[in-house]
């Protein structure tokens, strides 16, 4: 495992291009595009203001930079550096901006969700979509980029409009049986749309592409409901995480629940491996020096080491007492992610913030639990294999795979607090983002990783 040198970064804006060749990152109002392999700067763009959002077009040819405060979007071309495009939303303001899947249209949501403006880069035409719903996830595109589903709110009723992305023609428009629609999500095969209601009610609806209601599922009433939803990459399962600390798995044939995964604070099953991160006082001359640090002698030695220990059951996990009289209480399943092969599901229960639960979907049971020393900020699956990267806001990166797990100290000046991370398409590297910097972490192939692990010694 190797680490690149540390680069500057602001607002955690750092993204790999969809084709995996480039890496875009922002430093204040500048946009830097690097080659992924050499990390050399290919292009440097200067925007009008501090960039708040960047997004690669699907064909990796354009990057949009949104400056919401100014109501501005600037688009840059990678092929033609001199090409420029600036979209000004004027007094209507701007709260969100995204590419259409074809990479030639930009959808801007104005303030107060008055409308969505669809700007085309090919023609002068501008389309407006009225009544978009102000919700967490109101726009979703199918994986193949053909269709867009949009949540709308008209006359105190929720609607979903399905557009054909190629010409922005409205294909279907139907009302949904929801109190206050919160999110919509296409199944990866693009044929089923999951629509879920506000957290006040546990309700998830499944619509076919042609607007038919396929099924409705509700686990309980009178309590806080759905917190997170995730489709399995095979479109076979729909995982619904809710405020009661459970994940319910629905199948794609009958849309009934197959099983539910509880997240208790104590684990009694001896078959489940519980990895517990343990901190150790530093011991000089240990493994971390054995692999070449990218900048020799640059940083001081890490203040402490950590490693995973296999805890013996029963294990009681650290729980958080949620404040229930405030909005958005820290309970329930806040994060859900299927591994790319749909074999594993990683979850986090928000009132056990230090733990990541990995479930075996083939056997529909808990597989492993990782308890970190600090709350898990984010986790992401390797796009190529069942390998989970976790960061906790500390200077370590944690990796889990069915074979085991390890913690890796990120070398660098001072503490490199990993706040976020994103995998490269190939799964060979990932970007680790801190508040002001980012670096790349290169993971070798299996064999090399094995030796690396051995080299790491104390870290594994």
């Amino acid at each position, binding site marked *: 495992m190797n680490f690149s040198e540390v680069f500057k970064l602001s607002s955690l804006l750092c993204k790999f291009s969809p084709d995996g060749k480039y890496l875009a990152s922002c430093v204040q109002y500048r946009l830097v595009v690097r080659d992924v392999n050499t990390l050399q700067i290919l292009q440097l763009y200067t925007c009008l203001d501090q960039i708040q959002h960047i997004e690669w077009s699907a064909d990796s040819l354009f990057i949009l930079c949104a400056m919401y405060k100014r109501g501005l979007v600037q688009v840059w071309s990678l092929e033609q550096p001199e090409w420029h495009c600036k979209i*000004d939303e004027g007094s209507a303001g701007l709260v969100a901006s995204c590419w259409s899947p074809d990479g030639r249209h930009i959808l801007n949501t104005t303030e107060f969700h008055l409308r969505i403006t669809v700007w085309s880069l090919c023609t002068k035409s501008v389309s407006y979509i009225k009544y978009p719903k102000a919700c967490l996830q109101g726009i979703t595109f199918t994986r193949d980029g053909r269709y867009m589903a949009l949540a709308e709110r008209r006359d105190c009723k929720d609607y979903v409009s399905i557009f054909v992305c190629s*010409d922005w023609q409205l294909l279907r428009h139907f009302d949904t049986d929801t109190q206050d629609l919160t999110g919509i999500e296409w199944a990866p095969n693009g044929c089923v749309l999951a629509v879920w209601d506000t957290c006040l009610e546990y309700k998830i609806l499944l619509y076919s592409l042609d607007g038919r209601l396929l099924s409705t599922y509700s686990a309980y009433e009178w309590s806080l409901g759905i917190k997170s939803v995730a489709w399995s990459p095979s479109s076979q399962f729909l995982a619904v995480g809710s405020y009661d600390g459970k994940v319910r798995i629905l199948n794609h044939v009958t849309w009934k629940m197959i099983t539910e995964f509880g997240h208790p604070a104590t684990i009694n099953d001896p078959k489940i491996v519980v990895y517990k991160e343990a901190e150790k006082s530093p011991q000089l001359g240990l493994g971390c020096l054995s692999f070449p640090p990218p900048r020799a002698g640059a940083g001081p030695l890490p203040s402490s080491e950590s490693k995973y220990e296999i805890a013996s059951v029963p294990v009681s996990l650290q729980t958080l007492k949620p404040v229930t009289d405030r909005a958005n209480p820290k309970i329930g399943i806040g994060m859900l992610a299927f591994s790319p092969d749909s074999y594993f599901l990683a979850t986090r229960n928000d009132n056990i913030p230090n733990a990541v639960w990995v479930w075996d979907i083939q056997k529909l049971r808990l597989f492993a639990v990782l308890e970190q020393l600090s709350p898990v900020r984010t986790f992401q699956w390797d796009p190529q294999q069942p390998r989970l990267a976790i960061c906790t806001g500390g200077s370590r990166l944690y990796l889990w795979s069915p074979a085991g797990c390890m913690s890796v100290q990120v070398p660098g000046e001072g503490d490199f607090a990993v706040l976020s991370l994103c995998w490269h398409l190939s799964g060979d590297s990932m970007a680790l983002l801190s508040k002001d910097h980012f670096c790349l972490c290169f993971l070798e192939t299996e064999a090399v990783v094995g030796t690396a692990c051995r080299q790491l010694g104390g870290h594994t």
Partner: protein
Amino acid sequence: MGDWMTVTDPGLSSESKTISQYTSETKMSPSSLYSQQVLCSSIPLSKNVHSFFSAFCTEDNIEQSISYLDQELTTFGFPSLYEESKGKETKRELNIVAVLNCMNELLVLQRKNLLAQENVETQNLKLGSDMDHLQSCYSKLKEQLETSRREMIGLQERDRQLQCKNRNLHQLLKNEKDEVQKLQNIIASRATQYNHDMKRKEREYNKLKERLHQLVMNKKDKKIAMDILNYVGRADGKRGSWRTGKTEARNEDEMYKILLNDYEYRQKQILMENAELKKVLQQMKKEMISLLSPQKKKPRERVDDSTGTVISDVEEDAGELSRESMWDLSCETVREQLTNSIRKQWRILKSHVEKLDNQVSKVHLEGFNDEDVISRQDHEQETEKLELEIQQCKEMIKTQQQLLQQLATACDDDTTSLLRDCYLLEEKERLKEEWSLFKEQKKNFERERRSFTEAAIRLGLERKAFEEERASWLKQQFLNMTTFDHQNSENVKLLSAFSGSSDWDNLIVHSRQPQKKPHSVSNGSPVCMSKLTKSLPASPSTSDFCQTRSCMSEHSSINVLNITAEEIKPNQVGGECTNQKWSVASRPGSQEGCYSGCSLSYTNSHVEKDDLP
């Protein structure tokens, strides 16, 4: 004593008194008449009887007594004591045989009665103990009852408390339920209110939005614009098309195409899955058939025909299924057949497995007999052989037992001695001790006996001396008759001493002449004698001694008494003589055996007492 006196005169005695007398006598008679031994051992009793008899029947009233007895006996159903009278006038003779028979019968009756009494007494004792036991049981049971009653009360109390609690809990539950209901209602009302409010707010918000929209959008905002260097080509390289009905239709088509594709894909998957399952099913079926068919021939004979037909059915099905065309048939057409055949086969398999289980259990139960089939002949032969062997073994055992027994009897003595030796040392020790104790006791007894005999000899000597003395004294008196010199004190002393030593002869004398001497010694002497006997240790040796003594005294007293009868009279009159008696009494006590002295003093005191009234 007075009673007896009256009884002697039957004419005077009342009927009831005589009857009681009679009964009391019969009660006493066995002890007195039956065994001489008893008579000797219990002298006072025998004496009583003696005196009693004499009281009832004297020489004068023999006839009357006999007739009286006869009367009594006849009234009690005994045969008459008299012989059958031949003539009225002839005096009836006493039938000794009848008397003896009567006596015997009476004795038997007495014995029976005694036995019965004993029985009754023991019964009474038993009953008493039973009673006690029952009473204790009763009290115990009463206590138990009390405790259980108390317990019951406690339990009832607890039950009541629990019921109370339960009621309270029920009430609480009800309250809670009500509360829940109420809260749910509140939630629902709040929810509706919230929704209502939300709607209102949203409407306002929408209105505002609308207005904002109008304000922002309708005003020609110069700022809302796209500043672009040049338009870029579309990603697919095509030109954008106009939106027409045609495109709409095309979009629809495409959408349906996508949907169709998806469904087709899913159907294909399902078909594949189905095919897989069918394959598995087929394989299972084949295996089942192959598994079941070899046994089919055998069980078909036993098992009812239905299974046979089923199997044939199965075969048909299998044949059908094996055809390729079967695969392509949709499930609906084949389903019924398939499920039916599978069910049947499954049933067969199940029954087969059950049978196997049964067999296994049977094998377990019966051992290995069933495992390999043996022909009946072999089996029988084997059993015969085994039986023979068993017989032989039994015989052998018998002979061995006999031998053992013989051996045991032969060495029985040895074994007993051995066994004796086997006693614990402790026991031996104990026995030894006991033995020594016995020896000592024996020695003591011997000593005692010796002393007694010595005493007897001494007494004899004394007596001799005394007699001599008396003879001399008589001689002297005889001589003194003329000299007029009275030596009273000595005389009295001698008399008293003499009367004390030979009392029962005295008694006989007295009883013979009751009228003459109703007072004085007759009363005192038996008591004295009883005292004497009591003071002596109760052992055969002493009784023997007594006997010998009595014999001696009898022998000596008879000739003396004739003299004393006259001598006593003047003694009784004299008041001074008592004083002298005392003085004399003290003298021999110091010199001779203690008991003789004692007896002397006793007799004296008694004499004195009797004299007083």
